[in-house]
């Protein structure tokens, strides 16, 4: 009671208060809380690792192929680099690029899908046939082929993954826009003569947002895995970049020096698990809402 009085006194709108309460409620879901915690921890690593990482990720800093010890918690690799440091820096390779893949796919695919869904007819046919054909390939094969065609490197891997991922959002946004188009408030806007693009921007897109964000979260984990897979196959990040997938390749080459592959693997597991927990939790919570309607 007192809380709400003070907050409204400090000029916070009721809407904002309820939004904060909603976020607090989400965090009470254990899977979501766990996911947010892990994601936040990795975000901190990405932003600050250069201040506190024990060694330089590119320099040989000790004996080659040393097993884990007090100086090198996860040992050293074949070039004598500190594995722990490289794994921490690896977050800077995998995570931003995965987020960027989702963002670009969302932008390109979402826009195409929304346009297709809203205008229908021929636009819809063209876009959706393109979606069908792209989605007719197993994702990794398509990504491999595109990455191979463009030549190895993280930038080309990025393009390959956007090529693979955009149709998913095109489908999603199209379905949502088509469903939304017939909702009452949109029909009301049409009846008072709002222009199509204005309706799309002001009324349709904002409502599709939650569902899309949940999907994007679920997908993010998959993209992190795909990024690493491409690098593992030598089609993503190139040595000496400390990328997790590429580091696991090095680990596979030094099979009996298990620590080289252990650390990047653990890093990926925590990241992907965290994201999946978050996505799963959000899906659960959202499902409950849908069911109670």
């Amino acid at each position, binding site marked *: 009671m007192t809380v709400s009085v003070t907050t409204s006194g400090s000029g916070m709108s009721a809407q904002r208060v309820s939004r904060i309460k909603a976020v607090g409620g989400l965090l009470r879901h254990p899977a979501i809380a766990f996911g947010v915690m892990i994601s936040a921890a990795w975000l901190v690593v990405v932003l600050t690792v250069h201040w506190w990482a024990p060694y330089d990720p590119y320099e040989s800093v000790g004996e080659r192929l040393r097993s884990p010890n007090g100086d090198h918690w996860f040992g050293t690799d074949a070039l004598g680099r500190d594995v722990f440091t490289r794994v921490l820096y690896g977050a800077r390779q995998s995570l931003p690029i995965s987020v960027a893949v989702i963002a670009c796919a969302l932008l390109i695919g979402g826009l195409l899908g929304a346009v297709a869904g809203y205008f229908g007819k021929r636009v819809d046919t063209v876009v959706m046939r393109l979606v069908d054909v792209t989605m007719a390939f197993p994702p990794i*094969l398509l990504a*491999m082929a595109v990455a191979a065609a463009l030549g190895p490197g993280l930038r080309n891997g990025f393009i390959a993954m956007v090529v693979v991922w955009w149709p998913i959002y095109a489908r999603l946004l199209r379905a949502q826009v088509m469903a939304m188009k017939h909702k009452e408030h949109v029909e009301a806007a049409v009846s008072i003569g709002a222009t199509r693009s204005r309706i799309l921007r002001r009324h349709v897109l904002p409502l599709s947002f939650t569902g899309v964000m949940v999907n994007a979260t679920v997908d993010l984990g998959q993209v992190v895995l795909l990024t690493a897979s491409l690098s593992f196959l030598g089609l993503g990040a190139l040595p000496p970049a400390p990328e997790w997938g590429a580091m696991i390749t090095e680990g596979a080459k030094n*099979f009996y020096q298990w620590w080289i592959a252990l650390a990047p693997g653990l890093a990926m*597991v925590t990241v992907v698990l965290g994201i*999946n927990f978050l996505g799963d939790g959000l899906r659960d919570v959202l499902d409950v809402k849908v069911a109670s309607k």
Partner: protein
Amino acid sequence: MKRYILARLAIVPFLLFGIVTVAFIISRLIPADPLTSIVGERAMGNPEVIAAAKSKWGLDKSVPEQYWAYLSNLVRGDLGTSFRTKNSVVSDLAERIPATLELAVTAMIIGGVGGVLLGKFSARRKDRPADHAARVFALVGSSLPVFWTGLAALFLLYARLGVFPGPGRLPSRVDPPPQVTGFYTIDALLDGDVSLFWQCLARLILPAAVLGWAIMGSISRLVRASMLDEMHSDYVRTARAKGLRERAVMRGHVLRNALLPVLTIVGFSFATLLTGAVLTETIFEWNGVGSYAVAATRNLDYPAINAVCLFGGVVFLLSNLATDLLYALADPKVRLT
């Protein structure tokens, strides 16, 4: 039912055409001179070979004409010669497809059965610790990169504990069984060689389990959710009111109906499996399409890349189609319209 199947079949040619075209475009994007890829570097000095290749693939003509040449060769079942292996790509693939299928089918069985059991287990213990544990187990499986899980499994179970044999489809210096199906396990049995069967099975289980675990998560999640939905449905109450045993209610009504939506994801998972096979085969030195694809991309072996893309697309297409048809068979509502 007929109309439904026809509708599904009607888009197949379109998708096939799309797959073929995209595979062509991708292979033409490769910066390397396709001619080099086709005839091999050494033959580049031989003008006769080059001229022959050029006219066969229409490389001296415009891109649309090249496309036409590509299509007509494709219709004749000619996908070119692998730059790397110097064999016809079609025969290369034919050799490797059974290996990948054997792996994928086994993984599908492990993942599918495991996923359904896990989902059922979870649903019946909703929100209890056992439910949470089962869900976390499934989620971990789909959060792990298969190439890392494979590596870890090999290191622990083969190198350290020695419970499983090492990578590869066969022990070294053992000949494969006479080919019937191309599945070593089945062929060994058909040949009456039980000890070879066990050897092949032991080598199959580890990669298949790694792959199966990766798809278990999505299956068990869906089984759990749809079982929970069905458990609260009116007809389940009716079944209980009839005096059926709880087990009969679960199996005859809840699970039966809950598995319907699961069918869709099983088809989809099969395609995911083939994808995962690319990574698993690399780790387990499995001589299948996946490791062939990896070698092809590393060597810019463009006829091989093209063929693998085609193969992937067709498998994807077929498994989606099979899913739709299975669904139609399982759901009386679809079956009768």
